[in-house]
Each structure stands twice: as structure tokens, then as C-alpha cells.
């Protein structure tokens, strides 16, 4: 079956511009997660959705970051006024109800020039 998909796969943007990253979770997966991975590093937890609700937004690095999820499915992560330190791979994952195993998408590589 179809896995988690993310778009775009690569995004190059100029410093100061806004970007939107999209995640399509596996159908029926109620939980959705966003992570950020810098080159050669581990994953930094950003935010978690249960359905359309994000109970804890404290993982978002700054108020330039926001995320939403509509219809219990697609999620978008928006970064406003991008900075060079935002350059990273942004990973999305989803999981089945009651399950902790996460299925990851291929990621969006963001480069801020």
C-alpha cells in the first residue's frame, strides 16, 4: 500500500521567504509527527497531531514555525521568514491508532540560501 508521502522532495529558498512543506500520512493513521534532521544528526521532534489537534507545540523551534492538519489527513508545516539555520531535512511520520510504531516519509530537504 501507499506509504507516507512528502512534498516537495527538495526545496531551495532565499532567506526571508516563507515555505510550506506537505505531508500525506498513510490512510487511517490518526497520529502524525513532524521532525527535523540536520546533516549527520539525530531527529529533532517538532510537533505531534492526534487527528487535527496538536496538544503540544513546545517542540517548534520558534514562532516562525507553524503546522496544521485538516480532515485528519494532510498536514502542512509552514516556516515564515526562513533563516539559514532552518536548512535541514524535514521528516513526517504517521502511526496507527493505539500503536507507537511510526512510518516515516522520505523527507523534504530544505536549503535556505
Amino acid at each position, binding site marked *: 500500500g501507499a506509504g507516507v508521502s512528502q512534498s516537495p522532495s527538495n526545496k531551495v529558498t532565499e532567506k526571508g521567504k516563507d515555505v510550506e512543506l506537505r505531508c500525506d500520512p498513510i490512510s487511517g493513521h490518526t497520529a502524525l509527527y513532524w521532525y527535523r534532521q540536520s546533516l549527520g544528526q539525530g531527529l529533532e*521532534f517538532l510537533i505531534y497531531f492526534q487527528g487535527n489537534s496538536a496538544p503540544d507545540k513546545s517542540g517548534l523551534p520558534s514562532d516562525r514555525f507553524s503546522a496544521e492538519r485538516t480532515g485528519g489527513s494532510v498536514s502542512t508545516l509552514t516556516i515564515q521568514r526562513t533563516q539559514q539555520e532552518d536548512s535541514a531535512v524535514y521528516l513526517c511520520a504517521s502511526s496507527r491508532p493505539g500503536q507507537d510504531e511510526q512510518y516515516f*516519509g522520505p523527507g523534504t530537504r530544505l536549503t535556505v540560501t
Partner: protein
Amino acid sequence: SQQGEEDPQALSIQEGENATMNCSYKTSINNLQWYRQNSGRGLVHLILIRSNEREKHSGRLRVTLDTSKKSSSLLITASRAADTASYFCTTQYNFNKFYFGSGTKLNVKP
């Protein structure tokens, strides 16, 4: 930091040998998971061990958990070149918040 941290940072072995990597964490956990990441397949879930379990097996993988020492180990037996990847542990606590370590880079030489 509440992150799980893997040790060693890098490991190089010959095909057929066993590979052991460790993970330490700092707070109480609900469960601990191991994931593998390589350039071909991205991040893939390997195994989950709950806080009330001490050992779990899956194929060539064996995971142990010692909650008194706040540590876990992942053993890969009879390694193959295809096992070359980065291995991450992740701990869950505070309900659906996950923390990943910086990973162990395993290189299996044919």
C-alpha cells in the same frame, strides 16, 4: 537533555560478525524503539520494547532493556553488508513526544 543517546557513534565490522550498539536515556519511559536509516529506504522501524519487558527478538535482532540503568542494547547477529546504516533509539514519554539520539553509524564490510 532528555534524549536517548547511542553508543558508539560509529562501528565498523566484517560481514558475518555481530554488531552491538547501546542507548542510554535520562527519564522514565513508556517504551523504547530502534529505527534504521539508510539512504535507500529512509527511516524504518525495527523493534519496540516496552518498559515492562527485558528482552525482545526479531529475526537477527535482539534488544534488551534495563530500566534500572536506563539503557538498552541492540544486537545484530551475523551482519550483512545490507545492514550498513545509521541506527537510532527513540524513547517515548509525556505521551506521544519522542526523542531520538544522534545514532550509531554501522558499516559492515563485505
